[in-house]
């Protein structure tokens, strides 16, 4: 889904090669979602569908304002609504726009066995390069936020691109442009953190003592951040992970394989064993296909 070029990459899945670095002046960007000024109007969802030409099926009412029912290959962002009764017995309706967090240390990219199918740009955006995707579903497993979804039509993985095509030409993501209350902001990560600080101070002055920024360090920070009234309990917001962790399996692969790779090519047999799941082959093997099918079936069977 990208209009950016390889010079912008700082990381590529299944590759230890350093990407070209002709461009060295890119600033890290971030989207800041201030849930305290979000009214759950879904303008972001419709803008996302409009800009990216996504049209999921017309679904059903399923007991919530959350529609479509889940993220999907053509649902890249989704308003999630949580009814929460606080300690004082007062109701709070916590509404959170869900979607890819664009982790600094992206679990999907780490897990992806297809070379260059997942990339990270110097501005921090994590993007799926669809024509390289093998549909194995490892990114789904690797994501600590349960974001990517595999299409049943083309067996490729999809998620929010942070409108990398818009950002690359100096525009803000479509959801940011559409948001009527300014609850979604976009800019350099430094500026967004600064602005978040002001918002948090204001929320504290209104009695939200635990207001804070969600920029979880467990994944090296994220390029989509939230201002939360209850930063001490992110999970209140429809299960936003309190401590997002990349699956230990994925971490282990990386942790084990890197030293192994350094030990040398002499251990070819061993390396070969890990090859398909870590560094990745140049070509898709049969095992990859089988594994991909399995992951896909698993995903499909998940309600």
């Amino acid at each position, binding site marked *: 889904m990208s209009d950016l070029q390889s010079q912008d990459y700082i990381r590529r899945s299944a590759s230890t090669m350093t990407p070209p670095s002709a461009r060295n002046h890119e600033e890290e960007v971030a989207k800041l979602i201030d849930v305290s000024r979000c009214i759950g109007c879904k303008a972001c969802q*419709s803008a996302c569908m409009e800009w990216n030409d996504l049209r999921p099926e017309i*679904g059903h009412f399923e007991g919530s304002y959350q529609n479509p029912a889940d993220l999907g290959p053509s649902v890249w962002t989704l308003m999630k609504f949580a009814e929460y009764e606080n300690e004082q017995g007062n109701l709070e309706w916590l509404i959170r726009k869900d979607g890819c967090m664009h982790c600094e240390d992206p679990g999907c990219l780490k897990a992806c066995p297809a070379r260059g199918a997942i990339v990270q740009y110097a501005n921090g955006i994590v993007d799926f390069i669809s024509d390289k995707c093998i549909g194995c579903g490892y990114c789904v497993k690797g994501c600590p936020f349960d974001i990517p979804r595999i299409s049943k039509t083309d067996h490729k993985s999809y998620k929010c691109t942070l409108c990398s095509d818009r950002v690359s030409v100096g525009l803000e993501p479509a959801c940011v442009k559409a948001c009527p209350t300014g609850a979604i902001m976009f800019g350099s990560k430094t500026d967004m953190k600064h602005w978040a600080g002001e918002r948090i101070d204001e929320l504290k002055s209104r009695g939200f003592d635990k207001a804070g920024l969600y920029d979880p360090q467990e994944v090296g920070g994220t390029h989509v951040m939230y201002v939360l009234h209850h930063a001490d309990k992110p999970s209140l917001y429809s299960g936003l992970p309190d401590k997002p962790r990349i699956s230990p399996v994925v971490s282990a692969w990386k942790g084990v394989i890197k030293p192994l790779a350094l030990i040398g090519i002499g251990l070819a047999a061993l390396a070969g064993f890990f090859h398909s799941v870590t560094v990745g082959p140049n070509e898709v093997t049969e095992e990859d296909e089988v594994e991909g099918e399995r992951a896909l079936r698993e995903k499909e069977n998940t309600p």
Partner: protein
Amino acid sequence: MTNTWQDIKNANLVIVMGGNAAEAHPCGFKWVIEAKIENGAKLVVVDPRFTRTASVADYYAPIRPGTDIAFLNGLIRYLLEKDAIQHEYVRAYTNAGLIVKDGFAFNEGLFSGYNEEKHSYDKSSWDYEFDQDGFAKSDDTWQNPRCVINLLKEHVSRYTPDMVSRICGTPQDKYLHICELVAATAAPDKAMTSLFALGWTQHSVGAQNIRTMAMIQLLLGNIGVAGGGMNALRGHSNIQGLTDIGLLSNLMPGYLNLPNEKETSFDEYMKTKLYKPLRPGQTSYWQNYRKFVVSLQKAIYGDAATQDNNWAYDWLPKLDVPLYDIIKAFEMMNSGQINGYICQGFNPLQAFPDRGKIRRGLSKLKFLVTMDPLDTETSRFWQDFGPQNPAKSAEIQTEVFQLPTTCFAEENGSLVNSARWLQWHWKAADGPGQAMSDIWIMTGLFHRLRDLYRKEGGAFADPLLNLTWKYTDPNNPDPEELSKEMNGRALADLTDATSGAVTKGGTLLDGFAQLRDDGTTASGCWIFAGSFTEKGNQMARRDATDPREQGIAPNWAWAWPANRRILYNRASADPDGKPWNPAKPIISWNGMRWVGIDVPDYGPTVKPSDGVGPFIMNAEGLGRLFARDQMADGPFPEHYEPMESPAANVLHPKVSANPVARVFSDDRAAFGTPEHFPYVATTYRLTEHFHYWTKHALINAILQPEEFIEIGEVLAKEKGIEQGGWVKVSSKRGEVVCKAYVTKRIKPLAVDGKPTHVIGVPIHWGFTGQARKGYGANTLTPSVGDANTQTPEFKAFLVNVEKTTAPAA
């Protein structure tokens, strides 16, 4: 709106009651967020449901649907008891000190003058005491017990916090906390803005709901000031324009009354419209009424309207009943008195109460013409769509003509927004298929009708034959030409009495101050005068410059009246002309004239010492805490139960509901009782949809695909209703089978000690369009109208709810 969307940011307190601004007006709601962030404002929401507006509020309190007046009268009582009013403002700018006639009284739920047979009031006692010069008597010391303020105090004395809580079901501590927040805005430099919409209008006491808050705003000194006002958030892009241009059965453009049949001559008509000032030296701007009417007649009839024929007064229709509102129109269709219907830009089968009655009425017509960009339910009323529209086509003889029209983006024109701005829009695309503009269709109809009258004659052809029709393309008048006509022109050279400046005959007028009653001016809508002048199309202006960054950009589009952005802005300054709130001034007196960021709502050179009141449209120059004869149901607001209510009125059980509400006898027979329909229902919009339009749009259909109702956890448990499970909701008039949203956002309310459950019914689904088929909320709603506006009572009625199984696919 008295103020503007942008001005909301100046508020210290935003109260959303009788509306759901975040969901129904998400774009405008940005200014509430701005007020919170930039001005430290607090947001208070009072609503039967915890809405998306409530989700960003600082304070929320629940209320039983249809009891807002009890809440607000209690609030008035609180303000008066705690003396939390802005004294100087109330004394100088309201009728608090005027003395009310001896005959006026209120007993057991009825004001003086009630006629039980006619269900209406003789309002002659609802007035001031007058002196020999015809001026209202006053007591500035407020000692006289017949002073408005003292009568008001007495009237609201019954609304104790305990009583408010008993009626509304609002927990007393929450109610009192809100009273406290509101009272704080009585300080001269503090303002509260009231944001409301159909949550207040769609009641049998709708107009009084709004009036009660307007009285509170007067007592607090919050009218005319930055960040204050009564702000009706319009639910339709051009509904403000609809009323402005007089698309109501009893009005003409610019809020001029259509004559009634007793007003057989122009002089007779004008007799009740002289608006003699009721206090010495007051402006009483409606004294210019005759100029507005004559200029309107000149716009309609041109040269054919002359002094000799009383400006063609005889050609105006005369009402034989107070009005022909939509409830009446469908009553007449059902009884066979109306047999043809041109339905332009309206979908009554979805939008009007008691859907069954609407369908029966349409089925009795000889012909129905629909003009709409969409394939509306009304156009298809005759077609069997299953349980959602069980029509028996073979039995329906109505001939239906479906004329597709262009929509706003396919034509040039203007829309009037909530803040009274006339904003020009430009055509972006051609309409699809055979769609034609409404102007083209109506013009074609006019020419054919006129030709028929010319050829064949007919009863009373004059009004049609004499219509002036001087457009460049007589078959398709240009929107700019129509706008110029509404603005108005000089028909002869006009010399200004004071300045001596001459306006050449034929030129466009600069404003309504130039209008004459001698036939030398024409203006199709006097309040629009100034919108399209010799300087060009003022509505097309797009200069966002806001000199004080206070939410007033005078060169962005054009606001009626006279490009004034904040109504009653004279009241933003004290009697000496100094702004109450120096940090946010609007206009002030500089010793010579009124200056500031807005067009003064006042004579520009009228000295403060002249004692002219700021409410120049009122004959006494004052804001009215006592409404005289202006309301059908009382000069003070009173709590009446909704027509269908779970409980009798605890204040006066014999007069439980509004005694002068709009009810036809067959509709009364279709009211349910709490015995069979024990739950209170209320209808509303969701942010994902706009009425019944956006279900035709794929993206909106994806975002909110299917009909559902909202039900609290307690009642759901009692009834065995599961989250997302199927329910049957029924009223005396019909039933809806849909899914249930079991939610914590609706809690049972303790009303007079009894738990009362509220059912929420979103309105959006019908049987045409992309979203899943639905029955429509109006299947359930009662056909009863507000006593003043005839707006249907969609916001409070009775239903039953039962668990059911999924319908067969």
